[in-house]
């Protein structure tokens, strides 16, 4: 498999997870639980596939699992106005713990995996063809989602409302928008996508179930959300960039570079994230296209 094709595959969980997180944060809620939701999505998908062999069902259940966890976070953050950082962390620990707890009997086992299929004609395009159009269904879904959700976010009323809830909830409220509902929906969407991202990891990316499958990808999703400046199209780019780092890491090891110290290669994504954060922070101060203004702040009507 070519490096580029591998990049796309490695980047797909990032695409899925980041799009979801973008929506959640655009509406004003910081969701730090992505890692946990991804882990639970991975486990749920794997277990479902293992016991039923039905991949479609596995994907759906993974999305539900992510959604349920995000519902807890939404409840605590939006209705109970709890500290969003602590709530998100709690969900991550819960998700990681649950996936380890429930997944123990499965360690080392394999389950039916997603197969790839080529889209006719498009797959014949030189270079790009096999990379983009000879993949599994979730890859296609992820690219499609990025495009569709970019459109929804910027060109439709629901998207406009979501963005306004995160920029100026008091104003949105005074114009008649239900800020609480908008935030619930966006957070739920974030959880569903995180679960889906996890499903991809266990159904396609890794051949068997291991503990700690997510390896911090959920956290990178959160960093990616910032790099992508909360824009689903840029998220595609960023996701594949990180996918490339993972794929490269794999390749170099296969060739033999860095076998002495593979850890430095593995460090690459995390170091890239930090560097990116520094660069973006310096930029964000200058450009005003940045954080949704109300991100992380619970909205209470009457307080301004």
């Amino acid at each position, binding site marked *: 498999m070519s490096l580029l094709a591998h990049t796309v595959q490695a980047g797909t969980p990032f695409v899925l997870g980041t799009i979801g997180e973008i929506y959640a944060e655009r509406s004003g809620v910081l969701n*730090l639980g992505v890692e946990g939701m991804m882990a639970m999505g991975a486990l749920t998908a794997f277990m479902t596939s293992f016991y039923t062999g039905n991949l479609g069902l596995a994907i759906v259940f993974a999305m539900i699992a992510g959604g349920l966890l995000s519902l*807890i976070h939404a409840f*605590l953050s939006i209705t*109970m*106005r*709890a*500290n969003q*950082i*602590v*709530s998100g*962390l*709690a*969900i991550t*620990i*819960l998700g*990681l*713990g*649950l*996936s*380890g*707890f*429930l*997944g*123990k*009997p499965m360690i080392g086992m394999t389950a039916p995996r997603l197969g790839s299929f080529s889209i006719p004609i498009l797959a014949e395009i030189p270079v790009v063809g096999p990379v983009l159009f000879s993949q599994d269904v979730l890859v296609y879904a992820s690219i499609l989602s990025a495009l569709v959700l970019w459109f929804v976010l910027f060109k439709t009323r629901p998207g406009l409302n979501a963005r306004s809830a995160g920029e100026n909830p008091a104003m949105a409220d005074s114009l008649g928008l239900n800020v609480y509902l908008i935030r619930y929906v966006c957070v739920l969407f974030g959880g569903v996508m995180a679960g889906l991202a996890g499903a991809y990891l266990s159904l396609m990316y890794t051949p068997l179930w291991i*503990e700690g499958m997510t390896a*911090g990808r959920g*956290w990178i999703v*959160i*960093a990616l959300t*910032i790099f992508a400046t909360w824009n689903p199209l840029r998220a595609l780019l960023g996701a594949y960039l990180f996918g490339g780092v993972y794929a490269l890491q794999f390749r170099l090891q296969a060739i033999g570079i860095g076998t*002495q*110290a593979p*850890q*430095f290669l*593995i*460090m690459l994504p*995390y*170091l890239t*994230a*930090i560097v990116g*954060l*520094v660069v973006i*922070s*310096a930029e*964000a*101060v200058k450009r005003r296209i940045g954080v949704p203004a109300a991100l992380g702040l619970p909205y209470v009507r009457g307080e301004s």
Partner: protein
Amino acid sequence: MTITVPVISLVLGFLSAAPLFLAVGVNPVLAYRQVLGVFLDVDGLTESLTRGIPLLLASVGLCLPFKMNFWNIGAEGQLFMGAFGATAMVFLLPESSAFVLLGSMMIVGFIFGGIWGLVPGYLKARLEVNEVLSTLMLNFVAILWVDYLVYGPWRDPKGFGFPLTPMFPPNARLPWIPGTRIHAGLVVGLICAGLVYVFLARTKWGYELKVTGESRLAAKYAGINYLKLTLLVMFISGGLAGLAGMGLVSGIVLRLRHGISPGYGFSAIIIAWLARLNPLAAVPVSILFGGLLVAGDALQIGLGLAFATSLVFQALILLFVVGGDMLTRYKMALTWA
């Protein structure tokens, strides 16, 4: 009121794990009995204390940045860097007296952890870099760095290829209470809890932390230098986590190895929050969590459950406490309205 709610939340969170046990085919009653058994058993209690030592050090350290709303999620990485620094001392001064060696291990462990905390502190104070993400990413870097050492240059040639350093010489081992694994780190931890308590309650920096935690603008008005405060606090916080790491390699495991900490840095976050950022309260909570970890072991061995079980307990307890906290705040707001 301020104690009953968290205690009830604690119990509720604990009990809410019952359906999960059922889901994996384990009788919840058996599981709970095993857990409680840890605390009713002398060995269990001493083990809880032992496991609680790194938790205590790290969570006490976290009380400081959290007080000023600086979200240091990097205690795990700072712990690893402290362990790294301490181990480096063993390699550098293997022949020194225990006093010199242990002393330098503590100092270097503290400093290395502290430096690892300074970096995200500086990034936030100067560039407004999100500290949740920066501390988190540095965790991975630190863990991988240690991995590199224990898989590579520091690996024990007689270790059958396992990722661990050679065993520490006796002069690199912290004194311990015979018959148990409780080591001098406990004393250090208790002293630090006291010191940090005094720091928060009696020093001018403790006051500055309170003000900054209220509002950065108010802190500015009061003439507080955010950069200096952040650097100081993150150095201490990282340093204490580093000490926790030193205690692990020098008091319990007696070598540096892959996975030297099974997430103590993250549990410390929960403990600090449950202790409401009071270092003295962190003592009993750390011992409690230490007990949960021991119970996790027992459940693993006795009932075949994953070690992650204790993580589940911790997360559920935290969720219920956060929820309970908010409920009390609501009720209070209503009574004033």
